[in-house]
């Protein structure tokens, strides 16, 4: 079973993402912000990191940079959840080493569709 680290400071989004992923047969670990995610990333292995961009403490871009600097996450797909109007953010994500982005709002089916493109 594949493991996904789902990072979002919003409890409702986290629940929705987590439920959707579990429903699709993934193993999910939740984190409430970048800092929490980084700590959890140190303890477990993941096949994919799905992170929100705007979060308190450590945001999605920072998290991506931090993860990429660790050998363990050199090649792990990292997807950033972003809002529609942020081309700038996409570029920042790219620079930080993110694998791709997913525009919010998305529906559960879309989320699974995207994830299956990188985790199989």
């Amino acid at each position, binding site marked *: *079973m*594949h*493991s996904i680290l789902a990072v979002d*400071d*919003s*409890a*409702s*989004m986290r*629940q*929705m993402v987590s*439920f*959707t*992923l579990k*429903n*699709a*047969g*993934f*193993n999910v*670990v*939740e984190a409430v912000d970048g800092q929490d995610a980084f700590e*959890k990333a140190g303890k*477990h*292995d*993941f*096949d*994919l990191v799905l992170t929100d961009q*705007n*979060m*308190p403490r450590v945001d999605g871009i920072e998290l991506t940079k931090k993860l*990429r600097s660790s050998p363990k996450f050199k*090649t*792990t*797909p*990292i997807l950033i959840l972003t*809002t529609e*109007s942020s*081309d700038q953010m*996409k*570029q920042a*994500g*790219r620079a930080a*080493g*993110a*694998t*791709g*982005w*997913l*525009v*919010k*709002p*998305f529906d*559960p*089916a*879309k989320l*699974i*569709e995207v994830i*299956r*493109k*990188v985790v*199989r």
Partner: protein
Amino acid sequence: MADTTPEGAGSGAGIDLSQFYQVFFEEAGENLEQLEQLLLGIDLMAADDETLNSIFRCAHSVKGGAATFGFADVAELTHQMETLLDKLRRHELAPNASMVDVLLQAGDALRAQLARHQNAGQGEAVEIGALVAQIRAMSSGSAPAAAAPAAAAAPAARASAAASAAPGAAATTAAAAPTGSRSLELVVGPLDAPETANNLIELFSEIADLGTIEALDAGQAADGMRRFKIVTSSSDADLLDLFTFHVAREHVKLLPLGPGYGFHLGAPGAPSAADAGFGFFDNAPGAPNAADAARPGALQAKAEPRTPGKVVAAPAQAEASTLRVSVEKVDQLINLVGELVITQAMLAQTSAKVDPALYQQMAAGLADLDRNTRDLQESVMSIRMIPMSIVFNRFPRMLRDLAGKLGKKVEFVTHGEATELDKGLVEKITDPLTHLVRNSCDHGIELPAERLARGKPESGTLTLAASHQGGSIVIEVRDDGKGLSRPKLLAKARERGLEAPDSMSDAEVWSLIFAPGFSTAEIVTDVSGRGVGMDVVTKNITALGGTVEIDSSEGHGMSVKVRLPLTLAIMDGMSVGVGKECYILPLASVVESFQVKADTIKSIGGSGQVVEVRNEYLPVVELRRAFDVPSFGMSDDGAVMVVVDADGCRAALLVDELLGQHQVVVKNLEANYRRVSGVSGATIMGDGRVALILDVGSIARRARH
């Protein structure tokens, strides 16, 4: 590929999002609460980045959830707020007071919208058109490119990004569209009559500049949902405004056209170019090189064998550090623990009769049970304890609006926000406190000119302070306004036919304002002063087992102290025997007890009796007489005197014997029987008997008069 993976393909679809609504509503409520606090606390002269970012994040978070869960109106308003807040945090605009006002109003509107959704759309729709227009005007008002409307700026940026994209991206509609316009997917529904959506097509032909629209579903409605592709340069808000002529706002959803996701070419973990032939790579200039450099990484990621050990076998998942539980569940738990405490007391009482030497183990077990029960009880009670800040936080906003309405300047200061109080009490204390705060602002604090004339600072100060004092919590509402006027109160009281001799003490004069229908306000404002209120305040607080004290100095201000028991459910008590009856005294009010000889009790002025305790004469209350307990001819020789103190008011209670100390579970007498003077509640003792809990304060006060 995806279909061959072990993780059931396609099972991500068909998830009922409504299961997450409740969490979203609560979270949005918290975000709005925080937004308001931050807005109220913002220093317009020197707003720091952290605050601006946090404010932005609140709106952003609500927007994200609202859009995901399909609350289009909430998403729209938060989107406008976010646009403005984004400019503020980027320092493209400087925050000002009217922005704060509008954002606060927007917060209120969002609450109303959310409340409506929470009631499944019942109630009147919230009109946000004017608010949206105002926020947009502010966002664009001082934008650097004043010629171009702010709304067009974003699409322009997107179009230019698309233009610089690699050939693969050229197929996307955004690039094909004229500069400044963007392509959107418009989803309408569910509609009872899906053909009404065709009116939208006409709308585009009627309004020249609106752009183009084409049906994506060939006129066929799937589940009452219609889908269109539109190319437009208008903002989402404008579009939504226009569409409301034909379809309800909540039935309209605007989505970015296209896949809504993408991969950075060559990024670690990204699908290979051949695989991801969707034309949605977000290519930076010079992409081919970047791709070459990164491709091996991508391939390596794909080729890497997945060792079984790599996948974590889900450890107990670390959830967030808080858990939402319904209050009913907690209350049920508290009730059960209450019963357990009674059972434990019963066991302790029974075991006192057996020989501890013979039943040593049982005695030890019972001692453990006693300690564990007490710990359990404390832990359970602490679940219900919430900080006073929950109540205090609602006042800054209220005061701001109120002071604005009255033309006054008020500074709000709080102390002891972390003081914890039982949730039930917090809920019940909020209304009385609100009343007191309003009163202070309306009647206490003077207009700025008047204050200056009296040599006071222009801004009045209103202080809310909470603290623990003994077994109770004291909440004080204090202002530095004009205070109460003794002559005015006396005159008013006489006018109303109340007995008000000049010899009344200050405290007695102040408490006149608690009389029903009593108001000294010269003008009845729409804020307060209608003469209902203070009596209701005292009534509510007394019902909670609390007291209200007033202190005032004319010209300097006034203070109202509300004293409440820490919790309503359990207290430490001392049980005393009178005849065959057993009464409970709140332990916190017991000062001392001593054996008393009948001749040390002196009669004064007719029926009153006093006893001398440490050079102080205290009124004696003979509980036997006060509660009419049948006497069995016991002499007073062995009687015990218990000195009690309630808010500085002391009295000596004459009882037959001291029985012991217990924690007692307070049962409301009013709810189960009726109000009895001198009694604040009842409890069930370990042996199953009912004992009355005495209202020491009222007994002591009565004794002194």
